[in-house]
């Protein structure tokens, strides 16, 4: 079991439960992610991909089932515990990068560590710089997020998600806002860090070509998993 990063058992999510606006978005989701897996999550718009990712990211609470992060049940944890688990075990990359404009690129990368333990140590700064180097942006360390391109911002966000060395990285349409060439290079980056850092990555994408480049693909339709298996390689 030590190879398991995430396990979902019978997860369901219903918004506005018990009201006229009740919306059953996820039903009976069962899923396991192992250490170092690179998995694509695909599905039509509105199928519940973001909702699922929010549940896995402990940003939202399921209405049914149990979610184990590194073997620990999470459903009945309080907000403080979930917040700490997010900081320690998870990295987030979103479609709109969400860098904080008041901080430099380097400080943005350091932010999860600053939140955790205040003034960053010399090693932390060293690690952040090496991650920036990894994503090819070490020259931009002192720039503000507004001074760099969208693709560069997304790379900074990836470096930031990696700075705590999380066992699981969650990315919700990280390339949705980028042109196809930049998207491909960001995806390459995901593959590389997956190999290099051995962290498990779950990435939501609309792009079948990008999904095909992941070893495993999960497809969601109407809030249910309809297929889960090895990706079918795209014909060239």
């Amino acid at each position, binding site marked *: 079991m030590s190879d398991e990063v995430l396990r979902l058992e019978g997860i369901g999510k219903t918004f506005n439960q018990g009201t006229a606006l009740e919306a059953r978005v996820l039903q009976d989701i069962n899923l396991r992610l192992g250490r170092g897996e690179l998995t694509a999550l695909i599905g039509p718009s509105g199928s519940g991909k973001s909702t699922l990712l929010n549940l896995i990211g402990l940003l939202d609470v399921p209405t049914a089932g149990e979610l184990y992060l590194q073997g620990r049940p999470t459903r009945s944890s309080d907000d403080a515990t979930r917040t700490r688990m997010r900081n320690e075990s998870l990295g987030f990359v979103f479609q709109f990068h969400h860098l904080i404009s008041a901080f430099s690129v380097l400080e943005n990368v350091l932010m999860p560590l600053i939140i955790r333990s*205040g*003034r960053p140590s010399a090693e932390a700064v060293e690690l952040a710089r090496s991650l920036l180097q990894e994503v090819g942006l070490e020259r931009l360390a002192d720039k503000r997020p507004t001074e760099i391109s969208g693709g560069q911002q997304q790379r900074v966000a990836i470096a930031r998600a990696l700075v705590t060395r999380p066992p699981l990285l969650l990315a919700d349409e990280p390339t949705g806002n980028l042109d196809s060439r930049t998207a491909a290079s960001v995806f390459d980056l995901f593959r590389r860090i997956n190999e290099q850092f051995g962290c498990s990555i779950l990435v939501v994408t609309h792009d079948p070509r990008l999904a095909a480049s992941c070893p495993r693909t999960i497809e969601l339709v109407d809030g249910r998993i309809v297929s889960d298996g090895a990706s079918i390689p795209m014909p060239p």
Partner: protein
Amino acid sequence: MSIRPLLSSAWTEWLIALRFLLDNRMQTLLILFGITVGSAVIVFITAIITGLQSNVVDRTLGTQAHIRVLPLDEFNRLAPLPAGTLSLLRESPRAQRLRSISNWQDVVTLLDQHPRLTAVSPVVSGPALALSGVARASVALIGMDPLRYERIIPISEDLLAGRFRVGAGHAVIGSELARDLGLNTGDKLRLDGGEGREAVVDVAGIFELGVRELDARYVYLDLKQAQTLLALPGGVTVIDTRVDEIFAADELARRIERLTGLRGESWMETNGQLLNALRSQSMTTQMIRLFVGISVAFGIASVLAVSVVQRTREIGILRAMGSPRGQILRVFLLQGGLLGLLGSGIGGAVGWLLVQVFNIFGPGLFQVTVEPGLIPAAMLIACLAGVLAAAVPARRAAHYDPAVAIRYV
């Protein structure tokens, strides 16, 4: 929670709060300007009104005792009635003749020992006529011991001519009286206490207290001569005192009454109207300060409310990265406190400068000093008000649902 995580969290909160303020430079500058103007106004009017009031009080008390200890009024004594009798009375109040405080030496000794009285001076005073050539004026004779009396009213400081010298046939009179009777220092003045009690004295000095009534009527003598003229040998009619805290005079007067069985009359009773005026002025100032303070606080609150909305996504991502609710809350409370502190610091300095400008270019009736505690107090209050004003937006930020906040556009 031990101290280390607390400190590191505080470091993070300061960093984020400062960066957020610097990042919104225009908003920060505008609200700082607002806080500066508000606190400058508060510091300025507080200093001016405090200065004005203490000046008025000083002037009033410069010419009178804080508490006058007097004999009880005389009243009609009725023979006791046999039980069961009904009596209908028609009483006319008794004329209050000039009379001495019985055993006043003991009372003076007692008051001398009172820790809250800073000066005690027995005085004999009563009406007389002053004559010089064909001119005559009705005057008030004040017999006193100059050493004691000067600690109540420092006459020497207000002398126009001569010296404050009484006894051995000397008298000191007011400037108005001197003018009315055509007198100069060294001239002779005849005093008539009635019923043939007369004396001729030398004018040793002429004072001007700036209160017409006193300058036209007061004639200072030593105790003995006044006692003789007023037919009260060895007696005093009133004991003047000064207290350590002027606004406690009323309460102290009551205590002295209980202590001595005499009547205590505080300056606050005799200057009721003045006190009323001062009180309503203080109230007006208080209102102005309150409303300026409230509008400044609302300014801070609205700027932070806007900032919280603008930063919804950033707050969401901070929460996603593991920033606890309390940290987000304190980031915004800190911003409020910092704005209040900084704005009131600058505002305090501006207010202080305005006071100096007022002292140099103002009407020049009195000098205003800014009390040393005023600006730190203003800064402390502004800082607390800033934190308080930030409470609503900060709570809102802390309770954002991170999943929703991240998707906010």
